[in-house]
């Protein structure tokens, strides 16, 4: 499990660094939001879920998708707008979804996924399924009405949903304290009479632990919880962001808490893995990534007939 989380984090980091390279080469189009620095959240949260559990993701969703089991080749093809992509090239970075894996989709609308996770939990309840839904969203999204309405409804009906706020300290260029009257976000849980916990989002094991607790509570019919994970995005909000809203020192401090070396150290120290084994993980990921890029680049564009297909169900 601990090695798995390491591999997940390495996959996410490598995938996004490859995207940066492709962007520099001018191959990538559209809005791309990197989660570099936040990998422990995706890896830890999804490690606490079992098959059948669902997530809803947001605009910064590559990590969530990979952690929920998405294939890098289909993701890469989607990002290049190819017919072989997860969404046949129709969605792009902000709309990657794989319903079979329980990923109900990235989302271009800030706060848009929170009610959907709440609804998925309601669906599980209606259908008598033992699953839990997890909403992944940012600190910025916590200021949308959709957040408040969902927490209230889920608490009222004791829905099996866990609200995971990925607090990377900023909503685009706006610092949390400039956008939220109560910057200690887990206190918002008090208003809805549900547990609110805060944890270190730079530590995959800690993330898995707090998530698992909330997930099992929800699965047991005790209702939702709000989990706030403190993290940081190492890159700008978008490609080309001049990043005028924070200091280099602050970023450097957070980079010193990089979740990947941290997990590596833990694995080595505890003897859960050797240097050779960890190096092999890196090599495996690099190999799969290279294949993913080749696959994507060699894939065809969507057929023109795809323009009008998929609007309605038959």
């Amino acid at each position: 499990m601990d090695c798995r989380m390491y591999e997940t984090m390495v996959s996410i980091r490598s995938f996004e660094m490859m995207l940066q390279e492709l962007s520099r080469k001018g191959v990538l189009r559209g809005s791309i939001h990197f989660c570099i620095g936040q990998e422990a959240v995706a890896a830890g949260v999804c490690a606490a879920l079992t098959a059948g559990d669902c997530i809803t993701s947001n605009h910064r969703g590559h990590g969530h998708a990979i952690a929920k089991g998405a294939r890098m080749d289909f993701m890469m093809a989607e990002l290049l707008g190819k017919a072989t992509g997860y969404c046949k090239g129709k969605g792009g970075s902000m709309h990657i979804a794989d319903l079979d894996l329980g990923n109900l989709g990235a989302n271009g609308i800030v706060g848009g996924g929170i009610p959907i996770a709440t609804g998925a939990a309601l669906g599980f309840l209606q259908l008598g399924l033992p699953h839990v839904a997890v909403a992944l969203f940012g600190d910025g999204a916590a200021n949308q009405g959709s957040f408040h309405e969902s927490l209230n409804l889920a608490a009222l009906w004791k829905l099996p949903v866990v609200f995971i706020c990925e607090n990377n300290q900023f909503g685009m260029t706006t610092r949390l304290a400039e956008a939220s009257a109560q910057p200690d976000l887990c206190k918002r849980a008090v208003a809805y009479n549900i547990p609110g916990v805060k944890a270190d989002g730079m530590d995959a094991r800690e993330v898995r632990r707090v998530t698992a607790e909330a997930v099992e509570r929800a699965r047991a019919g005790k209702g939702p919880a709000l989990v706030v994970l403190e993290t940081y995005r190492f890159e700008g909000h978008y490609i080309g962001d001049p990043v005028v809203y924070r200091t280099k020192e602050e970023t450097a401090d957070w980079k010193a808490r990089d979740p990947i070396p941290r997990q590596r150290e833990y694995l080595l120290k505890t003897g859960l893995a050797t240097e050779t084994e960890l190096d092999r993980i890196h090599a495996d990921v690099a190999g799969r990534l290279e294949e993913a890029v080749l696959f994507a680049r060699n894939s065809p564009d969507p057929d023109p007939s795809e323009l009008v297909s998929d609007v309605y169900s038959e």
Partner: protein
Amino acid sequence: MRDLTLSQAINEALAEELERDPRVFLIGEDIGLHGGAFGVTKGLFSRFGPDRVRNTPISEAAIAGAAVGSALVGARPVAELMYIDFITIAMDQIVNQGAKVKYMFGGKARVPMVLRAPFGAGRANAAQHSQSLEAWLCHVPGLKVVMPSTPADAKGLLKSAIRDDNLVVFLENKHLYFQKGPVPEGEYAVPLGVADIKRPGRDVTVVATARQVHAAISAAEALAKEGIEVEVLDPRTLWPLDTETIIASVKKTGRLVTVHEAVKRFGFGAEVAAIIAESEAFDYLDAPIRRVAGAEVPVPFSKSLEDLFLPDEHKIIDACKAVLA
């Protein structure tokens, strides 16, 4: 006259209105130091301070409501949505509240506010960041809807919109932000409800909006080489709509093509066609009307599909030739 981009022209109009009227203030997401997602408000935060340029949380319903409420008590807010797509979240405050209070209260209230938002496809932003939703807004009595195609119009129309005592939705095509054109310095207002003939012609009337005005002009230039003279008519405000100018043009040419990026069905083009069908210009029509518009699908991400989605010069040329055939 100096050249400005459309984005700079809007910035200048905002600065001049903030300067002129202390009741005017800006409100929106990341419009402060950052200057907004498209840089339209750059420099205004430093110049006018955080009380006149209010950076908000990500809360579109509250942004729209704060604008409506402050306008009700006499302020003149200019709210910015980062993308028109997010108006869905603000819609109650715009449609059920701001647009209707004057009428519901027997004329006693006024809502002197502007809601600015970028719209349009062609930037690989996919289905939730690329829509053209003007028809929704035009359908609501109580709203005015503006859609400039040039930097000068943007400046002049925005100044009129800010001075208007109604809720004016001001829609800015993302591609046009970076296009330059001559813009008058200082006081310059373009009245709402007055169309502009961007290129006169006698053979076909093309009523186009925003970025498609430029595509229509390119099409007109190409067709001119074949001896076809296209009249490109830019309504500039979709509501109030300058029906007189449109009717006069169609009476002259006898042929009408409409162009917009929004999906065709129930769109602005349909309204223009219906206005012609109901007017005395109907008898002057020599061919059925053609509408060129966005495909009837959510906007796709892949470039190959997005190009098919959008109207362009070639589709306009084809439509003009079809009505002339």
